[in-house]
């Protein structure tokens, strides 16, 4: 039985790969290998995107290395394309595991014509209707009240969908977070709130963020169960999230799941020197030892089905090739031109925007012709 409000994170697999509880039958070596593959893919995507940043081909990136078990585990615990997801800006492993095509993700990061979001948003803020993966926003916790509303609509419409809303630990300090949690609780909306507690909001540690001993206990105040999970143990993440998702889907109201994990890299390229500035190498090393990918590898070893060095190398090569091909394909589509400034502002472009677009068209033409001198 999976209990809410535990004092320690729920866990199935120890850091050395030994199962602590009986391993559920569905976690066959084949399934674990699939999960491992997806996590490695997300990890290598991180590395490739950091390289693209260094090459100046994109301008922003937020790494999720260390958080793969939480995100991939979440993706495997919901009905992709049926349920709705309101993600936050570090959720590419979630997106990839939900089947957002690599080309779509990379195109958004590069702001090319193949970007479904049309070059409007800064990199790493994608969205995809096919997966009901709502466009990511930079403003912290602003997705929480809309996620509650999305779930309210699902209840109103009588669907068996649920809404998933993800956020980091920092977001739980924003007023919007409390407003959204309260709304979903009061309405009994089928919303699964998932806190990807990676313990750092840029340079602010969880201990400076809240005096609460954990995030999940805050659920109590909003009349919903709060679960505490080892977010680096993908078996635990999937066991708890599948169980809770089923409860939420079946009309028991919203729930909060806190996945305790760690952001191994910096917040973004804006603070590449995280270790120097605000946290210790010892702390990072301690969490590196709890790496979710390594844990699955050790579990597979324990099950007598180890991932060979060659297999791992092949996985890495395949992902690098996948990203490289997507980058080339995206870049070949070129950059959106000035017209994208005026489209999608309203359902129908009002007259003042048509005038402003006409002004810019004239200016762009004149500049191309070299007719305007400054």
């Amino acid at each position, binding site marked *: 039985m999976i209990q809410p409000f535990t004092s320690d994170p729920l866990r199935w697999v120890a850091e050395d790969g030994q199962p602590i509880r009986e391993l559920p039958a569905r976690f066959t070596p084949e399934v674990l290998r699939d999960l491992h593959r997806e996590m490695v893919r997300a990890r290598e995507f991180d590395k490739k995107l950091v390289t693209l940043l260094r090459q100046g081909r994109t301008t922003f990136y937020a790494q999720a290395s260390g958080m793969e078990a939480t995100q991939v585990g979440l993706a495997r615990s919901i009905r992709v394309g049926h349920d709705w997801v309101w993600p936050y800006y570090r959720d590419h492993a979630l997106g990839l595991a939900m089947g957002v095509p690599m080309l779509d993700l990379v195109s958004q990061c590069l702001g090319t014509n193949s970007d479904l979001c049309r070059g409007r948003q800064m990199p790493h803020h994608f969205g995809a209707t096919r997966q009901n993966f709502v466009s990511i926003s930079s403003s912290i916790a602003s997705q929480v009240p809309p996620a509650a509303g999305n779930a309210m609509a699902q209840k109103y419409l009588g669907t068996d969908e649920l809404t998933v809303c993800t956020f980091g630990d920092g977001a739980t300090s924003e007023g919007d977070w409390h407003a959204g949690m309260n709304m979903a609780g009061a309405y009994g909306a089928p919303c699964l709130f998932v806190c990807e507690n990676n313990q750092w909001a840029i340079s602010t540690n969880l201990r400076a963020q809240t005096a609460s001993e954990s995030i999940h206990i805050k659920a109590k105040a909003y009349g919903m169960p709060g679960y505490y999970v080892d977010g680096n143990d993908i078996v635990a993440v999937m066991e708890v999230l599948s169980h809770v998702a089923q409860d939420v889907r079946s009309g028991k109201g919203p729930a909060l799941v806190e996945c305790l994990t760690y952001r191994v890299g910096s917040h973004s390229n804006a603070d590449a020197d995280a270790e120097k500035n605000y946290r210790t190498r010892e702390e990072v090393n301690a969490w590196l030892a709890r790496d979710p990918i390594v844990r699955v590898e050790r579990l597979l070893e324990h099950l007598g089905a180890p991932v060979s060095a060659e297999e791992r190398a092949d996985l890495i090569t395949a992902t690098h090739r996948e990203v490289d091909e997507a980058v080339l394909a995206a870049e070949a589509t070129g950059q959106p031109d000035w017209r994208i400034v005026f489209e999608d502002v309203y359902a129908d472009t009002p007259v003042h*925007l048509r005038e*402003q677009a006409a002004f810019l068209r004239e200016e762009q033409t004149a500049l191309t012709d070299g007719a305007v001198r400054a």
Partner: protein
Amino acid sequence: MTATQPKPAASSAGETRVLTLIQAITEAMAEELARDERVVVFGEDVGARGGVFLATAGLQEQFGQKRVFDTPLSEASIVGAAVGMAVRGLRPIAEIQFADYMGPGFDQIISQAAKIRYRSGGQFTAPLVIRTPSGGGVKGGHHHSQSPESYFAHTPGLKVVMPSTPYDAKGLLKAAVRGGDPVIYFEPKRLYRAAKGEVPAGDYTVEIGQGAVRREGSDLTIIGYGGVMPDAEKAAQALAAEGVHAEVIDLRSLVPWDRDLVLTSVSKTGRAVLVSEAPRTSNFMGEVAYVIQEQLFDQLLAPVMQVAGFDTPYPYVQDKVYLPGANRIAAACVRVLNY
């Protein structure tokens, strides 16, 4: 906390150094922290990290965690707490990481900070400063590039400033800290390191509400503030090469704004081009245009022209197209001259 009255300001010996805009901001905070122990600096990541743009770098080390500290990630908490601290006698300088994120703190700014003096008949006041990087040109997309100054200029009870030079950045920030009102202090982030200039080593303030003439001229007046100023000056230089003498005015403060300076200049030149990067509709410059036509209707030789951002969210890829660069400003000047 015990708080003492501020020490007398150090006198300036006339020594100046060349600083960037962000260095001038840091220096202003350091000097105010040293001058008056009621001054506290806080916000997201301002402590060990030194702020996302490093505006507060070194301040926690120098003044300790009691004076310079990180807060939970909550703009409503940051602004609301600043109001409470100011009411209780401190001089808070709160940082909102990006102007785009003032939304969650908006109610605290317009309902509490702006109104407490008025609603209490002057019994309670909230002299505080909210510093925030604003504007575009840094490939930030719409959540890191907006220019929301008009929302705040529209709210009675707030003062609103936006420097474009290191000298003004330091002087205006010190004036904001020492004044009796809540001040929204916008920092044009694309000028943080691009704008360099002479800054006195000693103490001085720039009065809130005074504009500055950046360039004298007789044929037309270009009026701007914040991030657009280097382009306004570039446009004026280009016009000078054609024999047109543009006067360039930097408003520096939006609330209050320097009507006298603007009206004196436009009555001299008879032509005005107003420049800002905020979206055009309900742009603060609409107010400036209104006052110019109201006061100088008979003296205008051409309609007042606005060069502004478009009425769209700020785009990521077409970042530079959105901004009114020197070309667009110069083209507007040419239209006004040829009217």
